[in-house]
C-alpha cells in the first residue's frame, strides 16, 4: 500500500470498514511510514478540534440579538396564530 492509497482507505479504516487483509496492510504501512502515521494522527485531531471549537462555542455566541429581529419573531408568531 502506498501513501496515496493509504489516504484513499483512511475513511474506511476509521469507520472500521476495511476487510482484514487491507486493514493489516494499512496498519503495516502506518508502522513503517512516520509521515503517514503523523498524517492520520493529525486527521483524528482535526476532527476533534472542529468539534471542540463548535460544540463549546460560548465565546462565539453574540452577546445580544438585534431587538428588531426579536420583535419580528414575536410578530411572526402573532400573525401565524391569527392566520
Amino acid at each position, binding site marked *: 500500500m502506498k*501513501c496515496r492509497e493509504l489516504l484513499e482507505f483512511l475513511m474506511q479504516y476509521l469507520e472500521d470498514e476495511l476487510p482484514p487483509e487491507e486493514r493489516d496492510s494499512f496498519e503495516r504501512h502506518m508502522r513503517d511510514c512516520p509521515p503517514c502515521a503523523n498524517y492520520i494522527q493529525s486527521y483524528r485531531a482535526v476532527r476533534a478540534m472542529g468539534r471542540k471549537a463548535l460544540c463549546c462555542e460560548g465565546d462565539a455566541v453574540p452577546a445580544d440579538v438585534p431587538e428588531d429581529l426579536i420583535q419580528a419573531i414575536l410578530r411572526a408568531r402573532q400573525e401565524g396564530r391569527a392566520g
Partner: protein
Amino acid sequence: MAPTPNAVPVDPESLLVDRLRQGEDAAFEELVREHSPRMLAVARRFLSSEDDVRDAVQEAFISAFKSIQNFEGNARLSTWLHRIVVNASLMKLRRRRRKPEESIEDLLPQFSEDAHRVNPAFEWDGRQDADLERSEDRDFVRQAIERLPDTYRNVLLLRDIEELNTEETARILGVSENAVKIRLHRARQALRTLLLPRFGVPEHPPDASGDAPNDEGSR
C-alpha cells in the same frame, strides 16, 4: 400552582415548557430572548447571508412554537431548538444552493510521482490534539471551518459536528452517500491543511536514507 407532595424542586425549564404549551405570550418572548443568540450562531455556520440567518432563526422559532406539544420533557430545550435551527438553516440552504461546487484542490495533499506526499511542510507534533483551551485557538478553528467551500463545510458540519450519519446527511443535502463520504474526507483534509500552520511544527527535512517504505519489503 398545584402543591407538590414531596416538595420536589421544579426545574425552571419545565415550568417554561408548561407555559409555552399553554400558549403564554411572555413565555414565548422569554424563549426567544434566551435562545436566539445561540441559534444565530448556529445558523451562521451554515448560511453566509445575514438575511438568511435571520429568516432561518425566525422560521425555527415559529416551528418550535407550533410543535411545542411534541417536545419531550426529558430533552433539553436548547438541544431541541438546536436541531430545529439546523433543519431550518439547511432548508434555506437547499433553496439557495445551486452554485457549482467550489474547488478545494489547493487545500488537499499533493503527491509526487512516487506517491509520496510533497506538500506537508508542517507536521503534527501530537501534543495539543484537541485541547483548545484558549479562545483564540477556538476562534482560529472556527474561522478555518468558515473558509471551507460551502459544499464541503456543510458535510463536515453535519457529520463531524452534528454527528449525523452518512445516510441522514445524504438525505438532507440531497446527494448520494458516496458524495457525502468523498466530501467529508476532503473537508477534513482541507481543514487539516488550514490548521497545521498554527497547530503543527515545521516538518523535519527528509533523511537521505529513504524515509518511507515502498509497497512491500521495507522491513
